[in-house]
């Protein structure tokens, strides 16, 4: 036996170990029980190391992972930046296209509204020369363009054609030092001569006496004196006014360049227009308002026109009152009774004092009306009276309001008599007249 064990020692050991494990498995299967001790030892031995590995992994591999994620983020960031750049370019391109379309639409509308016959042209290049402000347009003598024609945009005048070629024309801009055009101020109708200064910023209005009244922000229009530009085209807004030795120095920002100079209109047949009354306040692409004294449809211009001044609004109120009383203006017999304007809405009942003055002259341009003292009541509702609020003093002097934009500045206007201030004594009380 001992010999056999020594001879087959290895095989015996194998059998013992295998049989032992077989018995262990058989025990587990038979009893459906586990060997918790072995598992406990194994788990106790392995899991702490596993936990350490996990901590190490989180702190190292997580960092490495974040690093690679950041590498991807960087590449993604670069990619997104490229996309944003491309989108910006696309956006800029589309904006330019939209702006071009807006300008083209504005030109088209302007062409239909303007009484002058115009021809749309596109600026295709600049002229050579250090200080010259000339551009080439893509319309020439083949399109009917001739030298001396005015070049405008809906915003204002741009220049004049100085040379016409078969396929192109050379336009001298108003900013060129050799440019000159007759202009007129909007408020006081002061005539002057527009001169370029050689740069795009401002132009100069010359030959206006120091005594003339020109205000900053006032608009200048073409006067039509130069036989190039028809009357009534906007030139620009006054940015600075200085008094010189004899003549004023008036600097005007040209309005024709505000929307960018790409498309222009060449005036083939010029028709003079009236100087518009409405001030152009918004820069950019805009249309000249239709002339108020349009001969085609005067009624619509009176009713649907912009009521921008107090006189316009008051006139509209009087007209409504007359129509409510079936009074047709200009068609009633001489002996008919005038409408009762004392029932003007919002007007306080002061008929004895605020009697309307008869019309001074015929026509809408010189129509004069009496403006009652209760003018604010027309715009703002009168708050309910309270016992502590004193009634407003009744007007004693009728105030004559004339539409300043329609009136001729050379005509003498009816002015109110100067109001005498009462003399006060040393106590601030009005002095009583001394008895003779």
């Amino acid at each position, binding site marked *: 036996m001992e010999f056999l064990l020594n001879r087959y020692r290895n095989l015996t*050991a194998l059998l013992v*170990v295998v049989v032992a*494990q077989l018995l*262990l*498995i058989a025990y*587990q299967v038979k009893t459906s029980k*586990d060997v918790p001790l072995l598992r406990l030892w*194994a788990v106790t031995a*392995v899991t702490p*190391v596993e936990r350490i590995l996990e901590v190490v992994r989180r702190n190292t591999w997580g960092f490495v992972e974040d690093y690679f994620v950041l590498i991807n983020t960087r590449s993604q960031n670069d990619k997104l930046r490229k996309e944003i750049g491309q989108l910006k370019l696309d956006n800029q391109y589309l904006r330019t296209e939209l702006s071009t379309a807006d300008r083209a639409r504005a030109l088209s509308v302007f062409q239909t509204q303007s009484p002058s016959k115009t021809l749309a042209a596109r600026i295709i290049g600049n002229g050579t020369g250090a200080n010259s402000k000339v551009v080439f347009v893509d319309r020439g003598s083949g399109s009917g363009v001739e030298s001396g024609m005015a070049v405008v945009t809906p915003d204002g005048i741009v220049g004049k054609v100085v040379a016409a070629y078969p396929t192109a024309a050379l336009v001298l801009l108003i900013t060129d030092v050799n440019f000159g055009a007759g202009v007129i101020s909007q408020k006081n109708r002061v005539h002057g001569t527009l001169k370029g200064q050689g740069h795009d910023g401002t132009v100069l209005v010359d030959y206006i006496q120091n005594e003339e009244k020109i205000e900053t922000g006032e608009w200048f229009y073409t006067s039509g004196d130069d036989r190039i530009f028809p009357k009534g085209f906007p030139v620009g807004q006054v940015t600075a006014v200085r008094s010189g030795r004899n003549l004023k120095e008036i600097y005007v920002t040209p309005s024709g360049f505000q929307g960018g100079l790409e498309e222009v209109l060449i005036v083939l047949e010029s028709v003079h227009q009236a100087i518009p009354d409405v001030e152009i306040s918004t820069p950019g692409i805009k249309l000249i308002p239709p002339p108020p004294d349009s001969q085609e449809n005067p009624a619509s211009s009176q009713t649907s026109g912009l009521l921008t001044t107090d006189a316009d609004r008051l006139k509209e109120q009087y007209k409504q009152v007359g129509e409510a009383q079936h009074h047709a203006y200009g068609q009633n017999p001489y002996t008919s009774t005038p409408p009762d304007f004392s029932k003007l809405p919002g007007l306080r009942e002061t008929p004895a004092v605020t009697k309307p003055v008869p019309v001074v002259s015929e026509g809408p341009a010189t129509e004069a009306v009496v403006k009652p003292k209760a003018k604010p009541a027309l715009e703002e509702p009168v708050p309910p009276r309270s016992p502590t609020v004193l009634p407003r003093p009744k007007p004693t002097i009728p105030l004559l309001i004339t539409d300043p934009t329609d009136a001729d500045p050379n005509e003498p206007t009816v002015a109110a008599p100067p109001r005498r201030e009462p003399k006060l004594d040393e106590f601030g009380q009005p002095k009583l007249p001394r008895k003779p």
Partner: protein
Amino acid sequence: MNDYSERLLADSSRRKDKSRFRPLILIVVPLIAILFQVYVPRFFPFLSYLELPLLITMHFALTRREPISSLLYGAAIGLLQDSLSNQKIGMYGIVKTLVGYFAASVGMRFDTENPILTFILGFFFYSFHQFFYWVLTRALLGQLVNFDLQQTLLFGVLNAAVALPLFRLLDKLKVTPHT
């Protein structure tokens, strides 16, 4: 018997040349192998085919060339592996006991430092391990588990390929005898 077969078969002098490992290495290396098996496939599932405890058992048995110690070493590794599984304890133990015993027997007869023989032994013992485990599962536990021969052969090749550099690495941990 030609030269090549002589080189494959270990001579009697080498048969007595038993490699030794430090006790710490004998504990840490299988522990690392088991940790690798239970931890790394969480993040790299394709590495789950690696049976590192089996390769460690093989290497120990092939280099130690002592059947008893090898079968005990294999049994210990197998039981540890069983303890961390949801199977009955002893399944891997029996299989690795047999692997350890047979690998030590082979190591006494062949020159296990030959890479071709290492590759063949790796492939063979992996296939044997999987097949015998499947037999035990069906026979002892009565579980109807399919044996995927194609997958077993493929993974056997992969494990054998991994065994070559792994055995080289483990050879450096051996204590070289002075005699």
